[in-house]
């Protein structure tokens, strides 16, 4: 087992609608999909990034794509029209989530 950044085993894309962000996360290799399921949970994201991801987080699983979709309410500091963040769309929330350290067998 080793602690590795998620980005070494997974890729991701962020999208926004209003004040809701979604980040999809896909394992490069099928064998790492269980790592994503175990480590990239709503609770973990709230714990690590709760000051930014302020609302409810829902996870959708897509086993046929070895991927998940994290849908995060109140996660964009108001959304692109209201946020004063330079990245008002939260385009880089994918990079934020890929920075998580995960346990890889």
């Amino acid at each position: 087992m080793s602690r590795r950044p998620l980005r070494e085993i997974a890729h991701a894309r962020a999208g926004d609608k209003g004040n809701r962000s979604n980040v999809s996360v896909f394992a490069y290799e099928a064998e790492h999909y269980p790592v994503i399921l175990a480590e990239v949970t709503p609770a973990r994201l709230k714990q690590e990034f709760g000051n930014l991801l302020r609302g409810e987080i829902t996870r959708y699983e897509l086993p046929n794509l070895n991927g998940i979709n994290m849908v995060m309410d109140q996660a964009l500091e108001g959304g692109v029209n209201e946020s004063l963040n330079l990245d008002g769309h939260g385009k880089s929330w994918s990079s934020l989530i890929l920075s998580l350290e995960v346990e890889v067998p």
Partner: protein
Amino acid sequence: MAKKDIYRIGTGAGFSSDRLDPAIDLVARGNLDAIVFECVGERTLAFGHRDRQANPDKGYNPMLERRMRAILPLCREHGGTRVVTNMGVANVEGAAEATAAVARDLGLSGLKIAAVLGDDVSEDISADDDLWEPGCTVGEVGRPFIGANAYLGADAILPALEADADVVITGRVSDPSLFLAPLRQHFGWEEDAWPVLGAGTMVGHLMECAAHVTGGYFADPGLKDVNDLANVGFPIAEVTADGSAVITKLDGTGGRVDEQVVKEQLLYEVHDPTRYLNPDVVADFSGADLKQDGKDRIQISGGSGTERPEKLKVTVAFDGGYLAEAEVSYAGANATARARLAGDVVEERLARIHGSNAPRRIDLIGAASIHASALEDFDESRDVRLRCAMRSQSREDAENLLWEVESLLNCGPSGGGGYRGHITPSVMTYSAFIERDQVSSSVEFIET
């Protein structure tokens, strides 16, 4: 005449300011039946309303004439590639007139241009109407109302296609519907054929952001390399009657079409993948099946759908006042501390001298900015740009922010330089729902 088994549809733009040269290349070499230019976002629509209020001839996509001038002759030359676009934004009739003017200027006679109308429901919105986000009424938002548009579906576009329009211009329609409409017309998909409409919507969704499905918005050097990104090609979908498709791009263009890229786009801006809400259908992407079918070719199937939502979504736009942003740089040893001190000075003076209580934000670009609220620890940096931002209904407030940042040059920490400041008008958009029978679409034609 027998219908072709494969309908070839390309994407010429995936957002309002998208590149033009890949679209020209697609029309010239793509042997396309249709090309879609998707150019409307919630904010572009709000700005379109504002442009039209300032000048009744404007309010459509500012690049419309430039795009039409480049592609219309090629579309005719290549057997009548049909153009479907939402570049009408907040002035569909104006966009159709402007397109006709370009066509006449180019000597393209007999070009049939359709304007799809009915999405603008500004006059049907009252102060008592509920907004789904943020959960109050229109009146309670407390900001000047700009306009409201319903998301039309493929059914609004179909009459234009059935009348053999060469160019179809819309305002707000659901993005995948721009693709679904020509597919419905070509393959004769009925309006309640939910599974195939879901499959077609999945294709439209993959295509709607143009280079997003061919290697744009993807590269991460060393991990996710993309060949010749500067020349990334725009996508083509080769669609068959069952709603499955091959997503590909032109030979000789940059980018990549493979499972990784297509998967990322499949869930882009999607919430529940089993219930992607559109005016045409509730699409289900959960059964999506992707197979590599040669270099830069992904075969996609397994999309499905269920009965369309009862109501239509509406975007309601309000004046958002001003966004003021001002920046100054600190470099060298202790740069982060000097930038932080400068930010504290600005904060104190805006509150004490100017009495401003508008929402503000301080960024230390290079040390702690975009992810600052998510992370606790940041590295010190030798090259930091202080950014102060504010949203206010008051122009004076916004100007004071710029003034306070600029005056740091003489009165702030040592070595501050490179001041820039600007004030931009801002909009707010919220979502509501409207009964279908409150929205009636129609089509008007211009022939050159």
